[in-house]
């Protein structure tokens, strides 16, 4: 028995080392399709790398935007700047409350906002958060908060990507990386907004109906976030940013969702803006084009001015 236990304790670090090396070599040398469980994309869609590279330059902002791609593609920092607000947009692709919490722990003290506008797409309360975790692993620093997040997400893809990123960062393979301001039709605007070159949503097929079922874990983290912000006397505005009507209407339980969100803080659902039309103001089934962004942001500014 002693020999068996000894062998187990020797095998675990041995296998761990082999696993780490194999993960790095496999991840580094092979194309994406042969490494389904490593998804390391520095400079991935959404310009998270650029956003986090410049977040250190901002402090004491008036408004901090949080949320998914609906946030970083929906809140144009230039429009708010024209209205006298200094803002920063910390949205990221498919950002769920688990990632929002990490970002706030890292950057809230420095940004020190007077107000947080938190974009509330219900899907971010319904998903596991893997995509956004991968985004953060590749584009932000790796520390104990990252490890905590990866353990919470508990998905083989995030474990492998974290291991890969550790070696990748240790070997300083990112040092020469520079993310282009303009790529794949996206233009990064200082302050975290991403502008889409003009585009229109083509008529879409009928979406399958989907019931809003909130993940209890995500809701609990969200609740902590709101509580923490309020404790710091930061005003919290929850915003359901506009999505095409055809997409919005597929969700069963929108009113239920609105009622829940109203319980946490001031909440505004902007999906009733009459001026927004699916074919003219959206470039895909989720995101506003620049015309749509202007309409939406003007409405939001009206709300802020009237408060």
């Amino acid at each position: 028995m002693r020999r068996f236990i000894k062998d187990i304790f020797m095998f675990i670090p041995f296998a761990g080392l082999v696993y780490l090396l194999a993960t790095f070599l496999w991840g580094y040398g092979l194309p994406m399709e042969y490494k389904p469980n490593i998804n390391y994309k520095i400079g991935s869609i959404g310009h998270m790398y650029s956003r986090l590279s410049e977040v250190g330059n901002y402090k004491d902002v008036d408004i901090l935007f949080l949320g998914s791609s609906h946030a970083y593609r929906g809140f144009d920092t230039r429009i708010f700047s024209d209205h006298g607000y200094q803002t920063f947009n910390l949205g990221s692709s498919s950002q769920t409350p688990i990632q929002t919490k990490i970002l706030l722990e890292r950057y809230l003290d420095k940004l020190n906002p007077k107000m947080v506008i938190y974009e509330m797409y219900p899907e971010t309360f319904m998903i596991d958060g893997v995509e956004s975790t991968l985004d953060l692993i590749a584009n932000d620093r790796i520390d104990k908060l990252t490890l905590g997040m990866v353990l919470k997400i508990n998905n083989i893809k995030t474990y492998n990507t974290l291991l890969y990123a550790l070696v990748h960062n240790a070997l300083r393979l990112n040092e020469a990386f520079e993310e282009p301001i303009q790529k794949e039709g996206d233009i990064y605007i200082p302050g975290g907004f991403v502008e889409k070159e003009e585009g229109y949503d083509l008529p879409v097929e009928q979406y399958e109906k989907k019931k809003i079922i909130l993940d209890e874990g995500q809701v609990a983290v969200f609740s902590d976030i709101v509580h923490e912000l309020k404790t710091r006397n930061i005003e919290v505005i929850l915003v359901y940013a506009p999505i095409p009507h055809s997409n919005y209407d597929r969700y069963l339980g929108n009113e239920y969702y609105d009622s829940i969100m109203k319980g946490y803080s001031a909440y505004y659902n902007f999906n009733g803006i009459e001026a927004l039309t699916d074919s003219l103001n959206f470039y895909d089934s989720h995101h506003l084009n620049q015309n749509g962004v202007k309409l939406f942001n003007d409405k939001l500014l009206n709300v802020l001015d009237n408060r």
Partner: protein
Amino acid sequence: MLFNSLDFAVFLPVVFILYWFVVNKNLRNQNILVILASYVFYGWWDWRFLALILFSTVVDFTIGLKLKGEQDAFKRKAFLWISILVNLGFLGFFKYYNFFLDNFITAFSFFGMEIKPNTLSIILPVGISFYTFQTLSYTIDVYKRRLEPTEDFIAFSAFVCFFPQLVAGPIERATELLPQFYRKRSFNYSKAVDGMRQILWGLFKKLVIADNCAELADRIFNNSADLNGSTLLLGALFFTFQIYGDFSGYSDIAIGTSRLFGFHLKRNFAFPYFSRDVAEFWRRWHISLSTWFRDYLYIPLGGSRGGTWMKVRNTFIIFMVSGFWHGANWTFIVWGAINAIYFLPLLLTNKNRDNLGIMAQGRYFPTAKESLLMLKTFGLTVFAWIFFRAENIGHAFDYISGIFSDSLFKAPMFLDGERYQLTLILVLVFMLLEWKGREGEYAIAQLGQEWHRPMRWGFYSLILFAIGMFMPSNESPFIYFQF
């Protein structure tokens, strides 16, 4: 609790430590720990059904004791039938109630009679088909005086609910497993290491081969009407490897886990896709179930001792019942019947025991004749699996007619080309390893035994890496849990 879950990764070492370090001095305490661990293992899924296992245990234990003291043939038979009715009654209710009801409705509506039945929303208790057969084997063996009934309720309970094989086998005979609960178990280094190796291989089969094939097989079977013949053929092949990887992977983990606790379970799979005829396939596939049906159904029915008619009848009965055991759907019954049709010519021409040895034993490559025979048997098996996987008989026939259409010779319609390519490569590597290790108990049982330790450990670590790299990121249950 699933073998491929983090819960089990914590559960197993905890039980192992308690078993060998805390209660190791006392056999009875070890058995009690096995019972507690098994009930936790099973209750993790749904604790309410623990009552069923407990009830089945009490009934069969009591009947065993009654049979011991009873000499009257009529009463002995009555006790046996109580056990059969209780066990098969549970199985029939939970697994087949709605099937029979639906078929009655269909039959009555055929004659223009409309009935409004009370259908029930019944949850199928995981593993009921497995532990029911295991406890039945005990009562039947005691009845036939092949086994002394036990007076040790703890040992008997542990035998019924032994967690490694409780929910998906191998279905153990009381004559083989029960005595192991009476004997003091001592830790054996070589067996424990072998157990770990077999668990590793089982996880690879399940997580890398079965789960990847499952994603593609599901996608193809669920959209079969829109796909061409070559894609449908690929779908059938993916399912063929899915079910093998899934079920034999489970058996490997079960056998390996048992070894860690000093138990020996019977081999359940012996490289069935390297068979030269269907009879050989059935000696290598789900061995514990095949031999159960052989010993408790086929032989009591007269086996192959009678005339041609009896052989035909018994073969059809055993295969169709075996099919029905898998699930309450006509697809399983037809799957069984197809296998009976495959098997009968071999039986009737006395060729069913032509291939008893290992394919190409001692050689790297099979002969051309062996290769052709293996290919033919594999093809027949793949064809039969289509019925096993299809939603209903109509779907199976549509699927088959889709394969045998002009589009069979067109390029497959890859919905996600790279995924298909990667899965095919994984299956190829897997089958090469299986071929290399086909003379062992399982593919990697002997592989690398003569290597230096760092190399051997490196090999095992690479299997772990392959699991981590290629397993789908969502946990999926074993197919045989539904049976």
